[in-house]
């Protein structure tokens, strides 16, 4: 891809943070965000439309001292990034729907072990093989519920290459801070579009590292899963001398298997709660015109770009229409939406999405107000006019 980012790559092999203004592919911007965040282990498998992320990292990461491994499949990819992170890496993989499905069991392992890792899912039209090169947004519920059992995760939905960079940096910090798997749910349109991306200087890139043990190794036994007040335990890595044990079995604070209903309920509730109680710090969304709107359009990703134009047009025509764009879909910004409902002004929501109503379900369960939908199973994004017609109706 002969854009200026690639040209800069050739001259700046050793530069982790490509400070400057670029005209960059979304997938590449995501990769640059990971590199800027200090990502040093990538284990992945090629799959359209995410392959450009892997290829870009294969070009960039080795010169920076990191490790790129093309694994034999997505199951191995997810296992490898968890292992690397348990040994202290900031680890990353990138995939699309079919690979995401293969990763699900080990996503549960990452959640259970509370090992930070970041997974980019560049969504394509699904299910199954679907339309491999065309847009979808139908992995949204899967990101939240895809693995068996209850657990908490964080999922970002960039709507531009710039956000691919910014939200990927955030994703690594959130993964480390909350000790969870974090997803970057790009859609294929955003992943494959080329736009201006401004990358700051290295010291402007915020890096928040995971909490480590507060005593030196050997001083006393380290409790791998004793949470602090924020419900997050400090983590020790392989080779640091703390003799940790981590198991996917239900475990006690030592990390040892403890197969009782009481321990299980307590543990799993904490895995969910550590995201839930910190939701206000994690949620990100953009809104305008919502305070007095009678119609609010809620959208994310490439769909939000059409929605923005439609809402602007509607407002220019005098309609009281508001725009709410989710930059995190999980945790879902319930609090804000409940606030808007309680405000009494909003009469209905419009939720355009490239799936058959995944985000809509989340809103419908919060309200009796009408939630109008504009759905397409995948392959094309809605045009602004289609959303505008719905606003006008």
């Amino acid at each position, binding site marked *: 891809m002969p854009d200026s980012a690639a040209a800069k790559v050739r001259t700046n092999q050793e530069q982790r943070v490509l400070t400057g203004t670029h005209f960059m592919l979304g997938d590449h911007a995501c990769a640059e965000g990971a590199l800027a965040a200090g990502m040093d282990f990538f284990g992945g498998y090629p799959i359209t439309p995410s392959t450009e992320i892997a290829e870009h990292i294969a070009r960039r990461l080795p010169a920076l001292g990191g490790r790129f491994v093309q*694994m034999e499949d997505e199951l191995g990819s997810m*296992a*490898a990034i968890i*292992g690397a992170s*348990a040994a*202290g890496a900031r*680890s990353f993989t990138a995939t699309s729907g079919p690979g995401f499905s293969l990763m699900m069991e080990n996503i549960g392992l990452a959640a259970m072990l509370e090992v930070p890792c970041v997974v980019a899912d560049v969504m394509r039209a699904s299910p199954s093989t679907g339309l491999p090169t065309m847009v979808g947004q139908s992995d949204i519920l899967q990101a939240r519920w895809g693995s068996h059992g209850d657990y908490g995760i964080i999922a970002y939905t960039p709507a531009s290459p710039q956000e691919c960079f910014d939200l990927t940096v955030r994703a690594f910090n959130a993964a480390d801070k909350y000790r969870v798997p974090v997803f970057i749910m790009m859609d294929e349109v955003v992943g494959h579009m080329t736009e201006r991306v401004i990358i700051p200087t290295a010291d402007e890139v915020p890096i928040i590292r995971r909490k480590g043990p507060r005593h030196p190794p050997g001083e006393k036994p380290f409790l791998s899963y004793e949470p602090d007040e924020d419900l997050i335990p400090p983590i020790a890595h392989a080779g640091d001398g703390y003799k940790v044990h981590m198991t996917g079995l239900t475990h006690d604070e030592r990390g040892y298997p403890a197969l009782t209903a009481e321990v299980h309920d307590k543990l799993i509730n904490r895995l969910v709660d550590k995201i839930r109680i910190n939701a206000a710090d994690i949620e990100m969304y953009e809104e305008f015109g919502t305070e007095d709107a009678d119609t609010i359009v809620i959208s994310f990703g490439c769909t939000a770009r059409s929605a923005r134009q439609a809402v602007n047009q509607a407002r220019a025509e005098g309609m009281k229409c508001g725009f709410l764009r989710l930059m995190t879909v999980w945790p879902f910004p319930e609090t804000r939406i409940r606030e808007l409902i309680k405000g009494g002004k909003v009469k209905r929501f419009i939720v355009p999405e490239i799936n058959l109503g995944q985000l809509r379900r989340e809103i419908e369960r919060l309200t009796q107000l009408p939630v109008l939908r504009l759905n397409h199973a995948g392959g094309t994004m809605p045009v602004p006019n289609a959303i505008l017609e719905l606003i006008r109706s």
Partner: protein
Amino acid sequence: MSVTEQVIQPAADIHPIDNLLRADRLPHILCPGCGIGTVIHGYAHAIAASGFDENDHVCVSGIGCSGRAAGYMNVDSYHATHGRALPFALGIAVHNPKLKVTVISGDGDLTAIGGNHLIHAARRNVNLNVICINNFNYGMTGGQVGPTTPLGARGSTAPDGAVEEPFNLPYLAKATGAEFVARWTILHVREFQDAVLRSMQKTGFCFIEVLAPCPTSFGRANKIGDGLHEVEIYRERCRIENGAPNLQDLDIDLIDENKSITVGNFVDIERRPFMQ
């Protein structure tokens, strides 16, 4: 004190190698006569004799009775998902090449669900020491047959006898690129420990198959009365052939009393290290 008085046994609480085990979790969950404990024991001795700092040793295991081994080792240890111990261990070994990563898992975990990862880890020559505890079945889940169950042997999912021929694991490991390939049984305690030690010194993919009794599942289904009975089978029928015997002929026929079981250190070569 007379010599006789000297050696009247005192009762003991601690085993000398307990520092390398999570002794607060002993006795372990494994059945009487199960061979997995002997493997854990041998691995612990190998860690002590390896000359590497304990803190540099890491143990990763999969799911199954063999997979419980990691939970008893007092080193950084990880109990991963079924079949995925090898790529999990690859992530650790690649990110921190200083660590000595040993994978302990069972025949089903490593060669059935984990088979793809096995052949690729061997192909890549990842610096891992793999101990494959072969008890010829899926013990934890009640004795189902697996890819190493001998033809004709019974299991809960093959009540009339397995209809498939099993893997020849040393042949598979060698063919896919392992630098070190050995097969021992839990009876061969010192040879097994030495093999583990050797694999810790090497910087590539090492594969040690160790035969172990599973009296509760496999044994009971196949008229092998207890762990000792199966170990006696090993004792009577094993032939040690170090070096490079014809790996193709290393199939195990547990049922035919006239067939010998070949054990030994079969392959010890150097290949290009992975990502060094």
